[in-house]
């Protein structure tokens, strides 16, 4: 029956709507990103509902994450690793930065500039989860060396999500030492307020010059650039199949449908239309095993399966995690680009730091965006019931 179910998945793998370049989700786990974003069948932190609500069924006890600010910026470092050397420093692109406008344009053209700041306090109780989120992303790039075009995509999403995951039949897992297979389903609903602007401006055209010279203040400027605000509701669905071996080993497969049917926003302010949130279909598999005081996870994802034009290899994500008492290590392959990082635990604090790359081109390994991520979790508490 599961074979039939998953076979239907592949019917629409080549249909449905599309995205090009980077797909913008509402939220991503920093840990997941450092694992190549192969997190659909893992999703065991506070960001579960951003990946697969069915994974909530695996959660036991109560988990509270009160404050978890995260920041993502372009990776300005250059690292050379060889057999006999390890060098790191500031990338040449960011050294001796010119001041003349034309030279600045030549230096930054084609280089993505990205800033993400987010926080999502979460409470999970067994299979139920409630999460508030606020996430600001600014994506800018100057393209076309002949007639430069400045693309700006700024969005600030805030809202809440409510989700539940349940297991069909007997539930296996850490508490149960028995082996067996379990299927879980999950659903989450979200209410989101989105504000932002998404525009393309000719760098040497008259429109940008006019906007800059006619705008007296920040609000007038952003309105002239196409800022708008709206709200909407979304639905996420997920399914997961887990095979447990003696409580220490799990082989999981999951599929999630995020923002089923796409999410439309009703405009409350501004003139320009608000970007819809496209649906994404993500498939993942994970192997998790506890060996003594170590946990390790190997995972593989395929997303966004709903994109009919992206290259297969760009949608493939592979990740690994080594979970030790104080230190976690992450490694991944994110559609052609590497990621790595570490997490440090100290009482109720957790610091996650790492680097990852992702595809922002239109073909496999066409254009990489290199990013650096930092997250600090404050008061990250879990207790079993």
């Amino acid at each position, binding site marked *: 029956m599961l074979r039939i179910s998953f076979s239907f998945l592949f019917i629409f793998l080549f*249909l449905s709507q599309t995205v090009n370049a980077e797909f913008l989700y509402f939220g991503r786990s920093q840990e997941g990103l450092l694992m190549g974003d192969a997190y659909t069948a893992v999703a065991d932190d506070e960001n579960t509902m951003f990946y697969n609500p069915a994974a909530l069924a695996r959660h036991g006890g109560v988990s509270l994450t009160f404050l978890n600010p995260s920041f993502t910026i372009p990776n300005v470092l250059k690292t050379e690793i060889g057999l006999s050397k390890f060098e790191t420093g500031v990338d040449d692109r960011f050294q001796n930065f010119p001041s003349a406008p034309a030279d600045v344009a030549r230096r930054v053209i084609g280089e993505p500039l990205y800033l993400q700041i987010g926080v999502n306090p979460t409470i999970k109780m067994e299979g139920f989860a409630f999460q508030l989120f606020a996430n600001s992303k600014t994506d800018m790039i100057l*393209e076309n060396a002949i007639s430069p075009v400045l693309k700006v995509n700024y969005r600030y999403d805030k809202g809440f999500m409510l989700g539940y995951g349940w297991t069909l039949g007997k539930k296996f897992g850490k508490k149960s030492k028995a082996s067996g297979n379990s299927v879980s389903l999950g659903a989450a609903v979200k209410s989101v307020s989105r504000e932002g602007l998404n525009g393309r401006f*000719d760098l040497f055209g008259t429109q940008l*010059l006019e906007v800059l010279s006619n705008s007296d203040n920040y609000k007038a400027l952003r309105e002239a650039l196409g800022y708008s605000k709206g709200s909407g509701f979304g639905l996420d669905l997920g399914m997961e199949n887990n095979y447990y071996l003696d409580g220490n080993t799990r082989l999981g497969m999951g599929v999630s449908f995020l923002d089923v*049917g796409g999410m439309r926003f009703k405009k409350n302010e501004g003139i320009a239309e608000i970007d819809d949130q496209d649906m994404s279909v993500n498939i993942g598999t994970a192997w998790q095993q506890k060996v003594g005081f170590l946990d390790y996870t190997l995972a593989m994802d395929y997303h966004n399966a*709903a994109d009919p034009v992206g290259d297969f290899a760009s949608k493939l994500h592979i990740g690994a995690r080594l979970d030790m008492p104080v230190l976690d290590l992450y490694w991944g392959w994110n559609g052609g680009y590497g990621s790595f990082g570490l997490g440090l635990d100290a009482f109720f604090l957790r610091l996650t730091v790492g680097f990852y790359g992702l595809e922002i*081109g239109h073909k496999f390994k066409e254009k990489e965006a290199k990013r650096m991520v930092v997250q600090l979790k404050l008061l990250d508490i879990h207790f079993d019931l």
Partner: protein
Amino acid sequence: MKKLIPILLFLNLFIISCGQSDDEKIDSAISHANQLLSSSLCADAIAVLDGIGYQNLNSRYLQTYSSAQACLAGYSTIDFFASDVDKIYANDANFIGSLTLFTTSPTTSLTSGSFLNLKNAINTLLFAGSTTSSSTTNRRAIFLETEIQAMNSQLLYMVLVQMGKYFEYYGNPSAAGLKGGGAGGNNCLADYTEGTAPAIRAGLGAAISPCVADNDGHADLDGAVAATTRQSRMCEGIILFNNFTDILASLTFTGGNSGDIELLKTLSDYCVLAGLGNVCSVKTLSECEDTANVTFENAQLFFLNMFENMFTDAAIP
């Protein structure tokens, strides 16, 4: 579990759409082409845009396509603003001479890839929307005003650069942009031997210095060359200039980097004052070459009153 199958079937039907819409395909191609042009991958960008069919009513597509063609010509707006825009001399005494000072102006042939590719890039926007007669008015009938402003801004810089190449080729300028000061030997752009042209040339006198003889033009505009061929070659320059003034009139500039472009809007008035008729407004090569519309004599008079007058041996500050 049997209940799951219809649920999943329903989900599949629910989420199946019809693939990428045409607008999404076009947007994707434009985005991809712009990305390729960031690395000056000109041919690749054109291939991507050709792949979705020529979108004659999509201003963004046309601007990107024009960029890709200009890329083949080695043109860049960044380079123009970095190196050349400040060289423009907004004075009718030697405005054209200042254009020959652009780093892109040295031209050995007007059939070179550089000249022809930039010509194609210009024509892509001049004839946007499949207009057969170039003018901002005609394009306004098809596109929104914001689209016109964007296309005309992009056109303006390319037309200036192309004029620089054209007049550098015919004007034999010195390194300082002074007509006749180069190694080519001619002191005039063309020969002026037909109709009233010699009298007008003589009447203009020192105002068109150093053009002081009727038959001192570039070899390609020499009296020995067939009149139709000469008219065609002169029309290349005439339509460039007329499109330049037409585009300029449609734009408003602010900011220091715009140089003296805003001050050049009055140049076209000289042609009208000279009473030269259709040649003052013709902006399409075929219309200019049509002797029923523009006589060969008027083409020469345009060259004398406009180009020779604005391209002299007067020093450019």
